[in-house]
């Protein structure tokens, strides 16, 4: 136990601690600082490298620059219908109303967007959006968004950034979260952050699965920390398979192929050359919602109509090479470099890949406050906006709208609770958290954490696939029990060094993944219907009774509990917006 007792920590104080430097974290930090708070951002990797950078297609906002018919009501209705109506309708309303302003703000700060001939921000069509709605710059919108926010953060007074720092425990005092223990990746030294309020902006947990568009950082840290701190999670059964990930080469399996390809006219075909979407959603075809397209590709492959690598063809060759290179430059480059496929001449091969977690921390619509005092969450780590299925483009707008709201609210909360950062924290709790973090370093013979991570991914891939069933989910839970026991005593996979030791870091990440995986399996077991991203072969129909129910996950003395919770009905004006029929959009109007 030599390492444990030797582990001292430094204490750093701030008003608002922001965990994560993706879109939501950065936008939240800017808002909190502008509200007068001292803000500290901690992020797992370097500033500017967060997962947001990989977003391609665009930001959804009803600015009606391309289709004059668009309005917040239509965006709201699309989001609710896409989410199969289990969204938090108030979040969806705020999101639809506020995203145009958030996009304009970004433009003010320097973001570059493709433009219409009048010089306005151009908007491209995307799956299940009634009108062209995605503000974008080619297919690298995430990069532009993160750069703009990063540069804004750099020149916002009162924001400090601690890079390559991982938070491993939240600490409470009198029911309020006021401390976070973290280690610096560079040298393994420990920090205790004390704060008035904490904004979680940690993203998703795609690394639960073998094939994912997510990078190594997406281990669901925020969801797990919030859960351990007593916060409620919601809709954890809802994870999105993006319909189009690369299927080969093996090294890049799961890498995202932007929905922008379909937005710009790309066609999906099976191995027989048939546009199979006409059998699954004849009205919207390739631009149906992601859950529908992903299941359609899955069904085609299972019926023996898949491509050689087990996917579908995505074909944009009917567009001119100039058009493709201008509208989809990254895709063009990505396929040429990685797969030696020229997408102006050959179709791509694509298959579903784990992409996004709709579920997450349960938050208040207006303030992004969790059920634990002092704890806020925004972006993918939060739940509610997307319900049972997220529409493309609604993630970047989510980050901006709720990042700002969360930052504002966290700053106000910190101001109202000036003593929170100094409130007493049980030293035994700190000691225990540190001991748990350090333990793998003391187990040179312990099991390799990478192997355990691969096994968690195998379990989720096998037991929580696109189409689930009770027996599979239950068996998955049992396997997780075994993995949890092994993870508790695992080693580092070689190397006892404190300096930049990825094996040691991974041993900790396993704990986050296991919480997310368990919550997913348990929630999926109790939602006995098929809705949105959650499809059950044993309950293939949608149960109208469950349209007004969300499943809430909580930590109890007896372990993880999932319970149904009714959601209040929408006010009439919102229900109207959902039921109204909107004039169809014809692309000819676009030019």
């Amino acid at each position: 136990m030599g390492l444990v007792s030797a582990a001292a920590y430094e204490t750093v104080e701030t008003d608002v601690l922001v965990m994560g430097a993706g879109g939501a974290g950065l936008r939240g930090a800017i808002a909190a600082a502008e509200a007068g708070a001292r803000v500290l951002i901690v992020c797992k990797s370097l500033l500017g490298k967060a997962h947001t950078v990989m977003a391609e297609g665009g930001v959804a906002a009803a600015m009606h620059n391309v289709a004059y018919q668009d309005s917040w009501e239509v965006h709201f209705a699309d989001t609710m219908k896409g989410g199969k109506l289990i969204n938090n309708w108030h979040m969806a309303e705020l999101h639809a109303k506020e995203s145009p302003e958030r996009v304009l703000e970004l433009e003010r700060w320097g973001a570059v967007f493709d433009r219409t001939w009048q010089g306005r921000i151009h908007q491209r069509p995307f799956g299940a959006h009634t009108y062209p709605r995605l503000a974008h710059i080619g297919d690298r919108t995430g990069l532009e968004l993160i750069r703009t926010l990063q540069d804004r953060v750099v020149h916002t007074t009162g924001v400090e950034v601690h890079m390559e720092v991982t938070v491993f425990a939240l600490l409470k005092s009198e029911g309020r979260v006021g401390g976070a223990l973290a280690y610096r990746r560079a040298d393994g030294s420990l920090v205790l952050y004390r704060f008035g309020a904490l904004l979680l902006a940690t993203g998703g947990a795609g690394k639960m699965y073998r094939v994912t568009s997510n990078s190594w950082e997406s281990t669901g840290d925020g969801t797990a920390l919030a859960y351990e701190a007593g916060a409620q999670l919601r809709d954890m059964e809802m994870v999105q398979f993006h319909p189009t990930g690369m299927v080969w080469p093996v090294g890049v399996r799961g890498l995202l192929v932007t929905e922008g390809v379909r937005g710009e006219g790309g066609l999906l075909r099976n191995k027989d050359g048939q546009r199979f979407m006409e059998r699954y959603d004849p009205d919207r075809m390739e631009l149906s919602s992601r859950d529908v397209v992903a299941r359609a590709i899955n069904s085609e492959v299972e019926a023996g109509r898949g491509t050689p690598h087990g996917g579908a063809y995505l074909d944009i060759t009917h567009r001119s090479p100039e058009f493709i290179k201008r509208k989809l430059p990254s895709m063009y480059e990505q396929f040429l470099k990685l797969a030696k496929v020229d997408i102006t001449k050959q179709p791509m091969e694509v298959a579903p890949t784990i992409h996004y977690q709709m579920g997450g921390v349960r938050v208040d619509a207006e303030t992004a406050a969790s059920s634990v005092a002092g704890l806020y969450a925004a972006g993918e780590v939060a739940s509610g906006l997307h319900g049972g299925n997220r529409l493309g483009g609604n993630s970047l707008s989510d980050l901006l709208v709720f990042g700002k709201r969360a930052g504002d609210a966290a700053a106000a909360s910190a101001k109202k609770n000036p003593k929170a950062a100094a409130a007493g924290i049980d030293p035994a709790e700190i000691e225990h958290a540190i001991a748990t973090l350090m333990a793998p370093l003391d187990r040179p013979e312990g099991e390799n954490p990478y192997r355990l991570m691969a096994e968690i991914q195998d379990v989720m891939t096998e037991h929580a696939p696109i189409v689930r069933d009770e027996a599979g989910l239950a068996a998955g839970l049992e396997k997780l029990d075994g993995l949890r026991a092994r993870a508790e005593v695992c080693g580092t996979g070689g190397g006892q060094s404190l300096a930049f030791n990825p094996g040691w870091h991974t041993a900790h990440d396993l704990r986050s993944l296991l919480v997310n995986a368990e919550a997913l399996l348990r929630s999926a077991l109790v939602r006995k219907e098929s809705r949105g991203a959650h499809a059950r072969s044993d309950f293939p129909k949608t149960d109208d009774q469950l349209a007004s129910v969300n499943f809430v996950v909580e930590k109890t003395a007896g372990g993880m509990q999932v319970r149904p919770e009714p959601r209040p009905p929408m006010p009439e004006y919102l229900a109207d917006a959902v039921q109204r029929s909107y004039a169809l959009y014809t692309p000819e109007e676009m030019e």
Partner: protein
Amino acid sequence: MAEKRITVRATRFDPAKDSEPRLQSYDIPFSDDSMVVLDALNYIKSHVDGSLSYRWSCRMGICGSCGMTVNGTPKLTCSAFLRDYWPGSITITPLNNFPIVRDLVVDMEDFMEKLKSIKPWIIRKQEMPLGAGEHRQTMEQIDDFRQFSQCINCMLCYAACPVYGLDDKFLGPAAIALARRYNLDSRDQGTKERLPVIAHSDGVWECSFVGECSVVCPKGVDPAKAIQQTKLDTSVRFILPYGNRE
């Protein structure tokens, strides 16, 4: 047919134990033609030695995390194919011109300060209220600076720059390209504010026009062009005081 294998040598350095970096050799399976150098590192980390440290994230050349020196050239390891080196071996070392933290990880903190100094945001004499909508801009106006806006901060250009290697006060290729990107942006009116930094002795004039920065750039940003354009621009401003574009 026997399984194809490839020899990968990687820098190992643990500041707690080692006085200086050394190379360690790994013989790993080259199982798929599409494998990149990053796949080789991930293989080593997952199957051979879990303590090997390096940065990476997106696997698709957009986050700019996985820059390292591969057989002497700065590269994004997610875009460097093993097939281009096989049957030869591969030597992976950290990016030059930065202090090593551990193994293949270097300290890039310096760039953040440089970034801030060139004011990479739109500067207006007068802010328009949000209600007035976006600044109008045409696709042609964007074409003026599009190239310089593609930077992913991967630092390959700093690793390749002989001037930065000798003097880390040099503003450097990426920062100057970014300044150029804003100076050329039709929405911006801040050229004058950026001038003192880029025309300073540590700014563009330090550059000896070796052009390596543009050769190694994975995004075609061409920082060398930005630097030369800026030199010309600042000279014209000096000679013609009324030539300032606003």
